[in-house]
């Protein structure tokens, strides 16, 4: 078994996400590698959504266009996705509810609703019937499904859990008995470590919490709302203060206020919300207050495509806000990377006393990966030049913005006896009070702009693939999985391709990039945007120009297949 792709489709409100998640979790429980992504519209009911699950014994890094098993909760799903079915692909649906004229062998009709009513007394269990049917088609171990269902629905009540198991079983048995066709392959649990199944937002939230973030303020906005909600839900049990702000302006100003007072603080939003935070971002720069902003990109401009994906904000965040000051920009590759990068983000923020942007996107936020259990021993909290009460009390005439060789000033906190912490959004002297002095201005600008010197050495891009390959695929953030797979597949086909991938973009690692691109003949920038932003940044910083670009900006994620096709059509040609 190389891989198998499930897709669950239907209207918003039909419970697609639940079926999909249960399927993914059940497969992950069999120690397989799972990746799941979501395609949904900005509405609560109706329209067309789908949930795509890719599963394999080998690692899967991204999503796919292929479908081996389609679970169609409505007619439209059959219409839209049948063409994506692989040779042995099967579409399963409730023929009593979903009228489909042409019956071809790829279509398998299971009376989801009827079985639900018959076994569990309520048609709301129809989706669970479908789940059972789907796993039966690939001959997956029913006990695992039963275990997962029980776990998930136990929270509601024992009865609900039991009813779900019964419904699943009905679907499973019905399929065993009635399905006469063939599916691409069977799936069974494999030996190996049990992995966690987690999406980008959850990984970001958990990463932030593990990194010691204690304060989160946010305003709901797709695709980052999940971060706010996850942390909110854990706030009572884990001593977090999480506050829904009145708007994004308040959200970032709050995070800055909390951080100034001494706790690690963050906010999360998307492009439109970030646009409202731009003024406060500059405030963090001026007052040298560490803060982490998660920006979940979605296609803009303006409201754009609220529930879809894009990488349209790279140059915006590099250059955002009036005035000049240091910042750091990270862009996680996947859920695993997101967890550990959050730790890095908070450490950088405090070590350099700067705002840090973590650029995710809708694809990353909403997608699930199976990941090795996070290793908490790798979490290191480095609060930089944060002074304890005792340390601060030893300093005579403490001043917040002291000139130092590194540009970073020791940081005391308000409330320390004998110490006053003063800062200002106006240009200020070392003691934080307003100044009009030209001399101090120059020193303060230098401090704020260049204090991250050396940090670019920690922003190393990842090199992958045959070292000598003349063709280099470049990319950043959530395109990692797709590019990596494309590199593997192309090399298998005999092409010589390697990858240079960034999860840390600013300060830009100029030397490392120049070095990594030595000897390259074709340099192909792969981005989910229309203007190839990293290509422009890279040229500005290194002078090196791309020879080709593979771009996607229809709101859908880049896949390995998309890259390979574009490569063959345009780059190789």
């Amino acid at each position, binding site marked *: 078994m190389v891989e198998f792709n499930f897709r669950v489709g239907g209207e918003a409100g039909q419970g697609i996400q639940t079926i999909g998640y249960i399927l993914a979790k059940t497969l992950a429980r069999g120690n397989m590698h799972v990746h799941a992504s979501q395609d949904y519209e900005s509405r609560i009911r109706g329209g067309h959504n789908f949930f795509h699950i890719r599963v394999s014994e080998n690692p899967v890094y991204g999503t796919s266009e292929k479908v081996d098993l389609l679970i169609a909760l409505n007619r439209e799903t059959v219409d839209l996705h049948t063409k994506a079915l692989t040779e042995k692909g099967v579409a399963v649906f409730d023929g009593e509810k979903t009228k489909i004229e042409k019956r071809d062998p790829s279509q398998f009709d299971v009376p989801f609703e009827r079985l639900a009513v018959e076994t569990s007394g309520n048609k709301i269990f129809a989706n669970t019937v479908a789940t059972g049917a789907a796993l039966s088609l690939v001959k997956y171990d029913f006990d695992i499904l039963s275990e997962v269902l029980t776990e998930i629905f136990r929270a509601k009540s024992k009865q609900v859990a039991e009813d779900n198991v019964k419904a699943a079983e009905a679907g499973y048995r019905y399929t065993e008995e009635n399905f006469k066709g063939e599916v691409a392959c069977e799936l069974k649990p494999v030996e190996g470590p049990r992995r966690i*199944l987690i999406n980008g937002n959850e990984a970001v939230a958990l990463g932030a919490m593990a990194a010691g973030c*204690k304060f989160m303020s946010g305003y709901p906005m797709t695709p980052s709302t999940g971060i706010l909600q996850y942390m909110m839900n854990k706030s009572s049990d884990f001593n977090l203060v999480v506050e829904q702000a009145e708007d994004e302006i308040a959200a970032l100003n*709050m995070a*800055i206020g909390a951080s100034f*007072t001494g706790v690690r603080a963050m906010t999360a939003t998307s492009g439109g919300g970030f646009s409202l935070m731009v003024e406060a971002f500059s405030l963090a720069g001026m007052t040298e207050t560490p803060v982490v902003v998660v920006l979940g990109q979605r296609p803009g401009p303006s409201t754009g495509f609220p529930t879809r994906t894009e990488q349209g904000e790279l140059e915006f965040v590099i250059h955002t806000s009036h005035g000049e000051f240091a910042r750091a920009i990270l862009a996680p590759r996947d859920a695993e990377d997101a967890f550990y990068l959050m730790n890095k983000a908070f450490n950088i923020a405090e070590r350099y006393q700067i705002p840090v942007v973590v650029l995710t996107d809708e694809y990353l936020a909403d997608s699930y990966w199976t990941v090795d259990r*996070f290793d908490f021993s790798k979490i290191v*909290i480095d609060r930089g030049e944060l002074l304890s009460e005792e340390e601060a009390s030893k300093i005579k005439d403490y001043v917040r913005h002291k000139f130092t060789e590194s540009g970073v000033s020791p940081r005391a906190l308000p409330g320390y006896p004998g110490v006053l912490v003063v800062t200002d959004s*106006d240009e200020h002297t070392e003691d934080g009070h307003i100044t009009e002095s030209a001399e101090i201005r120059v020193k303060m600008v230098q401090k704020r702009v260049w204090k991250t010197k050396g940090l670019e050495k920690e922003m190393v891009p990842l090199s992958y693939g045959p070292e000598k390959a003349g063709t280099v695929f470049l990319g950043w953030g959530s395109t990692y999985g797709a590019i990596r797979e494309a590199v593997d597949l192309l090399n298998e086909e005999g092409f010589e391709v390697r990858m240079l991938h960034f999860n840390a973009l600013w300060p830009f690692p100029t030397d490392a990039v120049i070095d990594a691109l030595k000897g390259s003949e074709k340099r192909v920038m792969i981005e989910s945007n229309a203007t190839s932003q990293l290509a422009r940044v890279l040229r500005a910083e290194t002078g090196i120009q791309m020879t080709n670009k593979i771009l996607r900006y229809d709101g859908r994620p880049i896949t390995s297949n998309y890259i390979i096709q574009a490569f063959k059509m345009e780059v190789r040609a």
Partner: protein
Amino acid sequence: MVTLKDYQGGETAWCPGCGNFGILTAVKKALVELEISPHEVLMVSGIGQAGKLPHYMKCNLFNGLHGRTLPVATAAKLANHRLHVFAVGGDGDGYGEGGNHLIHTIRRNIGVKYLVHNNQIYGLTKGQASPTSDLGFVTKSTPRGVVSTPLNPIALALALGASFVARSFSGDVPHLVQMIKEAVNHRGFALIDILQPCVIFNHLNTFSWYRERVYKLGEGDYDATDGLAAFKKAQEWGERIPIGVFYKEERPALEELFPAIEDVPLVKQKIESRQFEKLIEEFM
């Protein structure tokens, strides 16, 4: 013992005769009388003449953005609720640019004490109309006179269910000292709208204009726990202008409602990454 000397700050950049001086005096006096030390105070101030106040005394200070004092102050209070957190700004700052934060901060009833230097004008930018400028007032930005209904901060706060609403006058330092002390002792958010003459750009609402009009609430039979009466009183503006506590209500402050900080201020809590390891089970 805390003395006025502890709060002695550097040189001011206000105009001679400005109403802000009275506020500075009152703030320092109130803090001394409350026996609060400078290091226990955090002032979050905005941009404008008013926002400079904390620079002219001694305390912890976050002088942030125009209009954005309240979110910063709210979060600071949540991060360390042992601090005495004040927000300080002008009428343009708080009722213009920052209007949305005022609304929602009142709703939260966070234990922040908000001092608004209400000079009914934009001072630092040299004399444009502010949200509280009186009807007909000719300013640099209203050559035909103000036509928008002046914002009534007292009525606004009452409508939003504020738990402490007061007005004072920078020309009556003892009164202002009293208001600040009551505000600090109040549980939750306190708004003090302070009538503050701007001797340069506001030649309508001058010291004598205010002085002729202000009278003190609470010297008669005024009941500061009756919201409707307070709202009625809040309509008075013109011949007579009431100062004092319009309304006061005891209810929990926001910082009392977070389980996370019931015992120890957030900033004093250890960072323990490993505690989150148990959450991993949810993803297995």
